[in-house]
């Protein structure tokens, strides 16, 4: 299985025969895993393949495992995450482990605040070092801002800065880029590259193939808790990796057949929102003009903070309160929804950005989550009719191929992809004319991703108008008919995906679309986005 291992380079981390079970289910079955100093080792696999479990063992968060972990050739047995941190191992979690009420600096130094001679917290030093760490991460944030006010992507950057502050020799990054815009991902790669040069060993978990091809040296693929393949990451194709992950060949990731677009369903004309109370970190719509026709999938792109989410929320009546100017027409009639319930009644449905925060009640059953939007419609004189509900849920489960044991199981026990399908199912049950999607494939494995794209294609064929916000350029190009580019809350360009590629979207997002106004970064990035691994598997 080993490929051209240079024995002269000692393994920084060596895990052998690692096994861990939850109840009766084996999450890791005799996994061998090595990480060398100055190496970026990608860990691939569908959700539930055992990646996170394996890394939590390495980070000392899971301690009741079998098998051996050695650091620099010395066997260790961590008893806690702090123990592992002392050994130089830091982990950036997929679930952001930040305290919302504390400031950026307080979060970064949580539990290891610098002290003055008097024993009080050395606030000045804390803020100074935070600024340095943020600069190294390439993010312009005020260290005094409460983390709860930041957007998901910004929070993700803060966790990265926090991990950098630990000066770790082993850095585990569990989907560090899932909420980042392309430009921020580029900055992240610069950071990773510097760490690699400094001799840090990095484990990089991601679902984005193009990222792996660019920054990883080696890639190990897990499936059902076992190592099923190991690749030279630079030579690996996305198709190879996908096949190893799902255990069969993935034919087409994107649903390419486009139907004929019909009547205009949504028309937005110079929409501006003057929020009554300005919330920091929000970019309200400030001049949006676009149309979406029946059967059409229109994308929304833009850098982080360009106002994609805010636009979708405004349309759905979930945005900031305040004055509007401009018009929103649905089927030609002006609308002004002030709450989601009204928007749903008008024929819209939304799949929100973060399913754990805004999408699902994780402890509740698949049944309860799926029918939530239509319980009162199915009820007779206020009494819920169980049989009708179950029928509707079953039909959705079948149609969306949701994998589960029983619809009475808590939705939190499903894999990320299947959870996302439940959110979709709830939206589709309302039989919407217009579907608003915010990062619908974030944190979803490649198999489920393909199925979600399929689903979008089918929805469009049935005449649903779809507005899709995404920070994955490959997704936008692959799925959408047209893409609207947002910058600072404005719609600044519209690209036809038959002609435009990922590079064009990126350039337009950054405002360097015209030749001659080029900057080096943009040129680099355009080149990056065109790299072969970025083409997807279609």
């Amino acid at each position, binding site marked *: 299985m080993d490929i051209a291992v240079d024995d002269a380079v000692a393994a920084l981390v060596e895990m052998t025969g690692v096994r861990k079970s939850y*109840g*009766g*289910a*084996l999450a890791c079955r005799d996994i061998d895993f090595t990480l060398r100093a100055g190496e970026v080792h990608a860990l691939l696999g569908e959700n539930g393949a055992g990646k996170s479990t394996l890394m939590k063992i390495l980070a000392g968060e899971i301690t009741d495992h079998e098998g051996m972990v050695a650091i620099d050739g010395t066997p260790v047995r961590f008893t806690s995450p702090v123990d592992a941190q002392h050994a130089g191992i830091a982990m950036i979690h997929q679930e952001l482990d930040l305290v919302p009420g504390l400031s950026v600096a307080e979060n970064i130094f949580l539990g290891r605040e610098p002290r003055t001679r008097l024993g009080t917290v050395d606030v000045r030093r804390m803020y100074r070092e935070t600024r340095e760490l943020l600069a190294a991460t390439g993010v312009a944030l005020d260290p005094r801002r409460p983390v709860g006010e930041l957007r998901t992507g910004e929070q993700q950057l803060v966790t990265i800065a926090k991990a950098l502050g630990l000066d770790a020799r082993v850095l585990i990054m569990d989907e560090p880029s899932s909420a980042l815009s392309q430009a921020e991902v580029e900055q992240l790669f610069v950071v990773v590259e510097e760490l690699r040069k400094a001799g840090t060993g990095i484990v990089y978990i991601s679902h984005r193939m193009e990222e792996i091809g660019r920054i990883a040296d080696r890639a190990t693929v897990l*499936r*059902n808790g*076992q190592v*099923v393949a190991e690749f030279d990451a630079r030579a690996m194709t996305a198709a190879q990796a996908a096949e190893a992950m799902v*255990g069969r060949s993935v034919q087409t990731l994107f649903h390419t057949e486009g139907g004929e677009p019909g009547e205009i369903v949504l028309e937005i004309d110079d929409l501006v929102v003057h929020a009554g109370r300005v919330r920091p970190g929000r970019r309200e719509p400030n001049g949006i003009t676009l149309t979406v026709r029946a059967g059409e999938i229109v994308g929304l792109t833009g850098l982080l903070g360009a106002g994609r989410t805010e636009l979708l929320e405004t349309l*759905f009546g*979930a945005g900031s309160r305040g004055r509007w100017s401009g018009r929103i027409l649905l089927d030609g009639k002006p609308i002004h929804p002030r*709450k*989601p*319930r009204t928007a*749903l*009644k008008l024929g819209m449905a*939304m799949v*929100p950005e973060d399913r754990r*925060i*805004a*999408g*699902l*009640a*994780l*402890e*509740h059953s698949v049944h*309860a*989550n799926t*029918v*939530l*939007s239509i*319980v*009162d419609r*199915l*009820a007779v004189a*206020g*009494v*819920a009719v169980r049989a009708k509900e179950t029928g509707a849920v079953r039909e959705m489960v079948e149609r969306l191929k949701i994998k589960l*044991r029983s619809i009475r*199981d*808590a939705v*939190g*026990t499903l894999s990320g992809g299947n959870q996302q399908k439940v959110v979709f199912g*709830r939206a589709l049950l*309302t039989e919407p004319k217009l579907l608003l999607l915010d990062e619908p494939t974030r944190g979803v494995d490649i198999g489920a991703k393909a199925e979600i794209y399929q689903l979008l294609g089918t929805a469009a064929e049935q005449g649903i108008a779809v507005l899709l916000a995404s920070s994955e350029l490959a997704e936008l190009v692959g799925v959408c008919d047209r893409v609207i580019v947002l910058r600072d809350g404005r719609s600044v360009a519209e690209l036809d995906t038959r002609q435009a590629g990922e590079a064009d979207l990126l350039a337009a997002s950054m405002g360097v679309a015209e030749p001659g106004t080029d900057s080096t970064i943009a040129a680099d990035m355009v080149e990056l986005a065109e790299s072969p691994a970025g083409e997807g598997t279609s």
Partner: protein
Amino acid sequence: MTDLQTEPNERLETKTSTATSIVSMLFRFQSLFGLVAVFIVAVLLSPVRDGANIFVSSDNLFNVVRAVSEIGIIAVGMTFVILIGGIDLSVGAVLGLAAVGSAVLMVNDDFGMWPAILIVLAAGLVFGLLQGIASAVFGIQAFIVTLAGLQIARGIARIWSGGQGVAIAYGDGPGEAPVSFSLLGERTFNGLVPIPAIIFVVIAVLAILFLRTSAFARHVFAIGGNEKAARLSGVPVTRVKVIVFGLCGLLSALAGVIHAGQLNQGGPNDGSGYELDAIAAVVIGGTSLSGGRGSVVGTVAGALLLGVLNNILALRNVDPNVQLLVKGLVIVAAAGLQRLRPAS
């Protein structure tokens, strides 16, 4: 991978899943099992007179139900509030206000029984709705709103009653309440079943059916499970919350009317500390304080468990201070068991 490798594990998984489902059953009906356990202990510890077990005598058992009826009715309302992730600290004070209101309206103001009761219930409903509006529309935390509500309700009750309990005398003359009001302290079916117990059982059954079958209840659970997701799914979050607080106020007022009928007076300090007993019953009943999970069945079992406990300790002549201590330990034990509950 080959099928040979997966098979044994899959078998293992199904076996453990039956085991976990039994365990989760036990936890789901934890309060019922707890009630049965406490009941058995009570039978064993009960004093015996003339060869008869005093605890299990029908007279005594109905006494237990009568004794918990006020707390039980309040706890049913509290269950709804806690299910949406809220809390209502004003229930005891609203009970006191309703008891005072019943007495003052009938005795001092010569209202008939039904007008007095309807006015008092409406007042409780409106009080609850206002608290709901403050919490859901203006976004003030329920804890704070209802803490203030507690003070306000007590204040009104004291002003209204002149600071003293208003005794209810029965008769047809001025300054006397209609005799039918005293039925609330009586027993029916050959003097066996106390009226308040019947009211409690009717309310409990209605609430259980309502929570099981209504579309409204689905919205209640959804709000407690994830308010943001509920809102984005089209649940009228604000409306549901306001109604739930209104319902809790209404039920607290009903308990206050019963209270006045049982004691033949309305005192402005009646119901002090009842909010804590009601919350205890809800928690023992397995409803999660963070909302989204729980049942009225559990709450009723929790209230009865507390009632049985109080009853047997009293029958054994245990020092009331020790009774408090035992009650506290039982609440902690019930909450501790909740933490062991499997995730799904």
